[in-house]
């Protein structure tokens, strides 16, 4: 046990900091730190900067373009980037479909898709959930009927994050409606430009367009775009879900938010006219969430260390998901509470970069209430916290 960085780890941290200083533009940094809307170009620009440095896929094996870092290096990297205000890379290509293609894809799929995921040429989105299948993912209804070398896909996916920008979607589809629900599913890679695909926005409770419905109306997909075997897609789906939870603790961002919360509480007034951070009740709330975050950070490192030994993500990831999401929610709630009556105005336009119209309340105020509302999703998506508890109950406690 040693909680101190080695000299090599400190040197690596300096290298990461130097990279971020050089490559992260102040404009983009301020957007992220200020809670403004990010454009497609913002995400892609930063992805390409990481790609040029060879750092865009720390989770990949070196032979495909990964970094070969230790768990501690990955921790340092994620923390530094989050702290500096770098946008997160999107998981759909790098951390969801890519591991599936590496493990189960054909040589042609690997050769075609992996470099394009790495370079950022392809923007991926996820076609898992359907309106009728939330936690019960395997009950999905989207059908793919085989006609020669082609699947004809019909159905609807939902909660497709940033699907409005996507070039490709990976989909779970039902190829055998007769079989038990887990046994008739296949895993398809679908070009979003294929005729018959319609993307419709879902407006979230904060008024933002972040997720979509994706409709498939007789969409033709080459059989070559199926990953692995027909009707074995559920195996690949579970493999993917195991990988999806890596990093889901969102510790880097939470640490940045904690810092931001303290800054806000230092600027906001208390009822007695002093600083809010000096109000004992508010200070205690901040202290409590800071302590929980300290614990989660160590837990995360412990889990990663254990995974390095056992070589596979285990059910402990559910612990990280549960506590990580709760901490994000608490931090966003405290930032909102710090605003007092300034939390009330709904200033949608003020989230656009470059907005210079009238503002109610402080300049850091506009995103905060919506952010609290938005963060309610974190205990729902990626397997709701109730589902995560079922997993722990079964896999760790043995019920």
């Amino acid at each position, binding site marked *: 046990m040693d909680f101190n960085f080695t000299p090599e780890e400190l040197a690596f941290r300096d290298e990461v900091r130097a990279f971020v200083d050089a490559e992260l533009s102040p404009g983009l940094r301020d957007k992220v730190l200020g809670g403004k809307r990010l454009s497609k170009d913002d995400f892609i620009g930063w992805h390409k900067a990481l790609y040029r440095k060879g750092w865009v896929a720390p989770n990949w094996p070196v032979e495909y373009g990964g970094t070969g870092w230790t768990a501690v290096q990955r921790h340092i990297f994620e923390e530094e980037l989050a702290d500096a205000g770098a946008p997160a890379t999107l998981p759909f290509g790098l951390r969801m479909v890519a591991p599936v293609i590496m493990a189960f894809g054909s040589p042609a799929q690997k050769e075609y898709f992996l470099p394009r995921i790495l370079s950022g040429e392809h923007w991926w989105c996820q076609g898992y959930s359907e309106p009728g299948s939330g936690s019960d993912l395997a009950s999905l209804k989207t059908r793919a009927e085989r006609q020669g070398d082609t699947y004809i896909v019909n159905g609807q996916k939902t909660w497709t994050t940033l699907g409005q920008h996507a070039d490709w979607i990976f989909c779970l589809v039902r190829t055998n409606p007769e079989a038990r629900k887990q046994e008739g599913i296949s895993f398809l890679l679908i070009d979003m430009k294929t005729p018959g695909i319609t993307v419709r926005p*879902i407006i*979230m*409770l904060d008024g933002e367009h972040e997720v979509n419905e994706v409709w498939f109306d007789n969409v033709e997909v080459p059989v070559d775009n199926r990953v692995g075997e027909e009707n074995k897609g559920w195996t690949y789906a579970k493999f993917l879900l195991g990988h999806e939870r890596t990093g889901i603790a969102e510790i880097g961002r939470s640490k940045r938010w904690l810092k931001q919360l303290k800054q806000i509480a230092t600027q906001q007034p208390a*009822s007695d*006219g002093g600083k809010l951070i000096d109000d004992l009740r508010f200070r205690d709330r901040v202290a409590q969430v800071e302590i929980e975050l300290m614990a989660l950070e160590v837990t995360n490192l412990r889990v990663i260390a254990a995974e390095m030994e056992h070589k596979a993500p285990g059910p402990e990831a559910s612990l990280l998901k549960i506590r990580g999401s709760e901490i994000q929610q608490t931090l966003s709630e405290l930032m909102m509470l710090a605003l007092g009556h300034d939390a009330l105005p709904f200033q949608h336009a003020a989230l656009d970069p470059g907005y210079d119209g009238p503002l*109610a309340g402080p300049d850091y105020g506009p995103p905060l209430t919506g952010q609290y*509302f938005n963060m309610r999703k974190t205990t729902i998506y990626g397997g709701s916290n109730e589902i995560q508890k079922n997993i722990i109950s079964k896999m760790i406690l043995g019920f």
Partner: protein
Amino acid sequence: MDFNFTEEQRQFRDSLDRYLREAYDFDTRRGIIGSAEGWSRAHWQQLAELGALAIALPEDHGGFGGNAFDTLLVMEALGRAMVVEPYIATVVLGAGVIADAGSDAQKAALLPAVAGGEQLLAFALGEPRRRYALTQIATRARQDGDGWSISGRKTAVLHGDVADRIIVAARTDGEIDSAQGISLFVVDADASGLSRHGYPTQDGQRAADLHFDKVRVGADALIGPQHGALPIVEKAVDAANVALCAEAVGNMAALIEQTVNYLKTRKQFGVPIGSFQALQHRAVDMYLHAEQARSMAYLAAAKLEAGVAERRRAVSAAKVLVSQSARFVGQQAVQLHGGIGVTDELAVSHYFKRLTMITMLFGDVDHHLAQFGGQLAA
């Protein structure tokens, strides 16, 4: 002691509920929120005709002379339907202040017009860079001839952009934070020097930032005693908090009903998700919170006409408990709805947002816990 509503009260509540159920459904509300004005004069007029605006106003001035429990019944009904019209701003705060402290002339001029739905009022209290203490008033009113000149900024004034008249708390004496020196004035919304920046609020209502730049009012604009308005402000804010508590009780009742229905109909793994015990117990916890909140709303309403210390103690206690309940019920309703709960499409997220704002208006949990704790009777 008596813990039942009268037959008249029940009938009144039922008629209000019936009207709102039929005429003010979720899609209607969505249309109102999306309109340029952000509220509906037609529905306001209907509420007037149902007697909802007049119910607790004095009989001498167009009201029905009801008590705090009548207001509570109205607010609970408005909460069930998530009505966005300016009831708290106009009736509870605006008319409440006039009825409590206004001159006969002010009462005659304003109360019947409020009762009839013709006048909208707003209460301009909070200021930029201030939190919840009612004494943190920097806006100044200086004697100017036989009238007053008011200068300062007010923020998050509920329905401040749609009101016809603004009741403004300003300092005629003393420094910020002084309990003495606060006075109230009624100002025409179109007075020269008064500019308003209106905006939608997070919960689908309206508010405004107001800038008073040497706004001139006559001597008859003063409400209540010069320098001595803090008790009036306190009582008005207490009444607003009781109204918010009652509204939250209505919000929660509707939200729990909708959530339980959802749990009974939404199927996963081949069964209604309401068959999972962990979710059932969560729903039970929501029910427990809501029942305790209802009790506190009743208690606070009962104490609204009690002595100052007893009143403030009960109101702060109610605001603490109702806010904690509102937070739990709102968050869990969203959670139990899953993905659909975080979209704009269903009522659930709208209830959640309104409940959230209720917990932050006129003092949050910490503020009221401090206020209550300061009066911890041994």
